[in-house]
């Protein structure tokens, strides 16, 4: 019974064990499970062992018992794009029609539903034929469209679910906020902070633990055994460089900054710099990027053990990264290609990481992300990614 359901859970990445599946059947025998509602509650509490998977479970349950749509990231990305297109269409039909190479009048005759369908077809078309042709459609995944509205307002968690069917409850996706997927948001601050708190240096094991030594020695029947602990190390210095230019980074700048502000006390030193898209001759100390600049060359004066963390979507036109004078600001002449600057920084600081709010699945669609990921180890700006990045940054002392 429910073997399909079990494998569906397993195949979509929820760790479920056969033992727990058998337990579920034991539960069914007790006679306590009388309805689909009961089955939902029972199967979730027995099969699923972490709230992180509640959201996915809800979706799969709704799919299995009611035929709701299965989670499919590309589908989501697409519908967000379409919503964006529609908004754009309402604002200025002509530009859109031109960009897509279709007749404005023809579009005007369509009903909203038909319009959506039409956009969908066009987008699928576009995906298949060429990427990056019409830029703002091609990069749709990484642009505002991919991320806007991914976390609709606040947490909605229900206490009483008496009057709703299990499928409806499942469809509500009450546990969405606990899911580990999706970019970092202010709501996840506490969780993210816990991850960041792991960013502590690891000293060598060279301090004798007297109590444990005595205990172990007694256990060894008097044969002396000395137990060592890790000695405490000086705290880490951290430089944070944030891409705060442009709307694509807008939602993340504040989150990241608050995150590091809070964690600030645990670091010996925390410096924050700003850049737009990529780094040229200078990094800026003021968010407006025009008052206090620090030349990139001067970064050699910092302790090379400083953890250098960059936050940015790394998405730009290739020339911005590769050309010698690639900056998009006229007043900001540069003497060296940005990619050289980045290499210089990654050589200067042994421990560095680039946090990218763009979902890792989409990285290959933007050439500049690939290029930068070769220079800096790149991580997703999600709870999982943050965990990885912290692991990477904390490892390797001296």
């Amino acid at each position: 019974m429910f073997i399909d359901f079990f494998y569906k859970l397993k195949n979509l990445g929820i760790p479920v064990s056969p033992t727990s599946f058998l337990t579920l059947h034991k539960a069914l025998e007790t006679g306590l499970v009388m309805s689909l509602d009961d089955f939902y509650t029972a199967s979730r509490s027995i099969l699923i062992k972490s709230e992180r998977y509640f959201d996915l479970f809800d979706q799969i349950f709704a799919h299995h018992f009611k035929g709701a749509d299965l989670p499919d990231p590309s589908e989501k990305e697409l519908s967000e794009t379409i919503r964006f297109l529609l908004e754009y269409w309402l604002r200025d039909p002509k530009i859109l029609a031109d960009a897509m190479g279709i007749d404005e009048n023809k579009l005007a005759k369509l009903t909203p539903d038909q319009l959506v369908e039409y956009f969908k077809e066009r987008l699928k078309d576009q995906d298949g034929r060429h990427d990056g042709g019409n830029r703002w459609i091609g990069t749709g995944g990484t642009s505002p469209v991919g991320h806007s509205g991914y976390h609709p307002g606040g947490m909605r968690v229900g206490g009483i679910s008496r009057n709703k069917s299990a499928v409806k409850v499942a469809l509500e996706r009450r546990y969405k906020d606990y899911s580990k997927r999706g970019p970092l948001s202010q709501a996840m601050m506490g969780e993210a902070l816990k991850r960041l708190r792991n960013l502590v240096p690891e000293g060598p094991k060279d301090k004798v633990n007297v109590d444990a030594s005595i205990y172990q020695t007694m256990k060894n029947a008097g044969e002396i055994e000395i137990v060592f602990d890790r000695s405490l190390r000086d705290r880490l210095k951290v430089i944070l460089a944030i891409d705060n230019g442009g709307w694509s980074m807008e939602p993340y700048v504040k989150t990241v900054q608050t995150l590091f502000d809070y964690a600030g006390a645990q670091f010996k030193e925390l410096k924050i710099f700003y850049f737009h898209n990529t780094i040229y001759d200078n990094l800026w100390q003021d968010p407006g990027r025009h008052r206090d600049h620090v030349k990139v060359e001067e970064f050699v004066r910092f302790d090379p053990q400083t953890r250098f963390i960059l936050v940015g979507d790394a998405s730009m036109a290739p020339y911005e990264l590769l050309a010698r004078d690639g900056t998009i600001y006229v007043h900001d002449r540069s003497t060296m290609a940005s990619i050289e600057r980045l290499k210089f920084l990654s050589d200067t600081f042994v421990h560095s990481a680039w946090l990218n709010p763009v979902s890792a699945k989409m990285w290959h669609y933007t050439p500049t992300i690939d290029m930068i990921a070769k220079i800096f180890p790149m991580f997703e700006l999600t709870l999982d990614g943050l965990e990885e990045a912290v692991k990477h940054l904390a490892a390797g002392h001296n």
Partner: protein
Amino acid sequence: MTDHSGLSRFTGASRYVLDNELAKIVNISMALEMPLLLKGEPGTGKTMLAHGIAESLGMPLIVLNVKSSMKLVEALYQYDTLTRLNDSRFGDSGRDVSNIENYIRMGKIGRAFTSDTKTVLLIDEIDKADTDFQDDMLDVLDQMEFDIIEIDKTVRAKNRPVIIITSNAKKDLSDPFLGRCNFHHIAFPDDRMMRDIIHVHFPDLDNNLAQNAIMAFFKLREMSSIEKRPATRELINWIRAMSADPDFNPKNLDKGDIPFLGVLFKKSQDFARAATTLARTRLF
């Protein structure tokens, strides 16, 4: 309907507002005789649930507060060598010094096992302990027996206790541990639920005050960039503080005038941030 465990069903308690989903999970866990692992934000009533179950089923409650340095054997039994030494020196206690069994004291788990009636065993904040402790403990709870090495005796559970385990999710629990428990995550109550909870705690509270306080509370919780968001416990204390203050007028809450902010925000950074946010913007 057959009830294998022969227990009465758990339906709620006088001081605990239960949602239906959770009641089902508790009943299934009791029927399967599996420990129930509860996770959730602090203040969502994980510990209170165990009290509620004990009260509603009329069973004694035994609480094991896990500490980070705890060894499993402490939770099972203790061999009181000091008293034995003392007795052997002075010998006026009437205990037989040569019988070690007289100096074995049961720990919390041991007491739950040896109790003549069925008990509710609450193992609070299991995540504080290390993984070895957790796995070893689950072995004991699985087998329902443990050995007392000093007297070479096996203690078997007379009655299988109802086991509730809570975790604040500071650390992830190990897979074998999770495999042996049923799991539930208690979400933060919504405002309807919260009103019920407040009503249980303050039956004669002025409706107006309760309404305004809960609304303000949820607005404050939504405030961004707060490390430790106020939970149910804070709300209850806050309401207690406000009803104790003779000068307090619930209408001021409407105007965004929040008294006793320190009751709600306990981290200094959070407090400062909340205070500045309140000064700058109006809540309503």
